[in-house]
């Protein structure tokens, strides 16, 4: 059993009190009539590590967008940290988003800024004037293993290194929840494995991690919680699952 699970069982009251993320009968229908999510119920606790799996267009990205309130659900309620976000006003969104660290398949780095500047950017725009910014940036770049690439530009880095910069930027403000939407989508298997190891390490430090992925190999190797989505529905939610349903060729 992994260390993270052991840590979780050491703090059962928090676990029992309230999940850090919860979905109650959430559906999302887009204006064009596409039903992206149907009646989703979910509970994710502080310190969890879970994979969100399913084919393209199953609703994984919609789920991520609902979490950070980039979209509002059509019906149902979503709570983050006990706070209902499904009906949250536009004004409160910045504070909500600071609870998250998010990375995407396409890294979204600023090409004209160095590695250190990309990471510092997240602090500059959310906590301007913060002291010891340089130290915080260096510390988080050390965590992702890029302490020697501070002054490089993104174009001078490999895909895996660029994703590490994105991870460092998402981590620097110490988020409660780390969301990774297809973080290994553009990477070769070895590099992908390195990124997943990093996410596990982040989870080990106590951060809740949710990773949406197609990467069957990774999911099967790590054997953590798997939430499978197909056609907008949660079809499986296992504590130590694999990419496909055990002994079958389906989700």
């Amino acid at each position, binding site marked *: 059993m992994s260390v993270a699970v052991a840590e979780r069982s050491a703090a059962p009251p928090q676990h029992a009190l309230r999940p850090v993320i919860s979905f109650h009968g959430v559906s999302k229908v887009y204006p064009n009539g596409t039903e992206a999510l149907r009646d989703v119920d979910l509970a994710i606790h502080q310190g969890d590590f879970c994979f969100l799996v399913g084919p393209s267009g199953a609703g994984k990205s919609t789920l991520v967008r609902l979490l950070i309130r980039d979209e509002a659900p059509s019906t149902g309620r979503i709570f983050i940290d006990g706070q209902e976000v499904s009906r949250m006003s536009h004004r409160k969104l*910045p504070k*909500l*988003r600071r609870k998250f660290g998010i990375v995407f398949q396409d890294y*979204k780095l*600023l090409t004209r800024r160095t590695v250190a500047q990309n990471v510092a*950017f997240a602090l*500059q*725009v959310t906590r*301007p*004037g913060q002291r010891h910014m340089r130290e915080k940036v260096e510390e988080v770049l050390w965590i992702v293993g890029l302490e020697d690439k501070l002054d490089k530009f993104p174009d001078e880095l490999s895909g895996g290194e660029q994703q590490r910069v994105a991870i460092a930027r998402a981590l620097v403000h110490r988020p409660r929840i780390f969301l990774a939407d297809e973080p290994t989508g553009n990477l070769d298997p070895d590099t992908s494995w390195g990124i997943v190891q990093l996410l596990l390490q982040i989870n080990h430090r106590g951060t809740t991690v949710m990773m949406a992925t197609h990467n069957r190999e990774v999911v099967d190797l790590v054997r953590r919680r798997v939430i499978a989505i197909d056609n907008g529905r949660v079809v499986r939610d296992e504590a130590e699952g694999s990419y496909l349903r055990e002994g079958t060729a389906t989700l």
Partner: protein
Amino acid sequence: MRQILASLWFALHSAGQNFRRNLGVSLAGVFTMGLIIFLVGGSLLFTHSVDTVLQGQEQNASHLKIYLSDNASLASITNFESRLKHDPRVISVTFETKDQAKQQASQNQSISNALAVLGSNPLPASLNLNVRKLTDLSQFNAEAKATPIVDSTTPTDYNSDVISKLNTVITVIQWVGAIIAVILLTISIVIIMNTIRTAVYSRRTEIEIMKLVGATDWFVRWPFILEGMLGGLLAAIFSGAVVFGAYRLFVQAAQGNLLSVPFDTRYTITLLIVLLVGGVAVGAFGSFLGVRRFLSA
């Protein structure tokens, strides 16, 4: 306090940085804004100059000489004069005797010679009327014609043709000026909005990241608004200088040629201040509109 200063520094720094990095787009924006500010300023100054000249003409035109018949009695003249004096439309009435008329006319050498040859004084006495409104002149003209003591052959020096034309010109100039200003203002806001939208579009990843990590809308907006203000200020300074120079040349050329157009210093200074404030305001407003679409989600 530290946070406010840091935010301000970030906004200023990224506004300047963005202005330099997208120098082509920025300069295109400044150029278009400058051109529009130049057109607005130029048309305002031109309308003002024409207005000044026309007002001068109007001042002259609002005088009416009512020629009196030679056999009119002094009592009836005084009576008519006091009736005119009490008319609310009249500013002043002066009586000009035949001798004064002769003296006035004699300032012109050829008339003076003609009068000397003639021996007698054929010029009539007159009541010189100064009215408030140009449009009232025709009524006074009609009134004078109906008065028995007025010379029946040439009752007044009223020239309906010139006066009605002058009136039309003034009205047309004012309307054209107003329409041009409205059209230019609309065009400028649309152009600035689109220029800034292009600038914002080139920074959409940055905005996306800012929103993603939880920057507030105003934090995202400020650099663009400052950039718009900077562009508006530069545009206003350049076009203001050009307008000022062009106005001076225009006044000199006009004075050398046909009309005396006064150089209105107070109006020019006010106009330059208005252009500066207006340029900054339009730049800020255009940026606000331009960045709005990217913040809606």
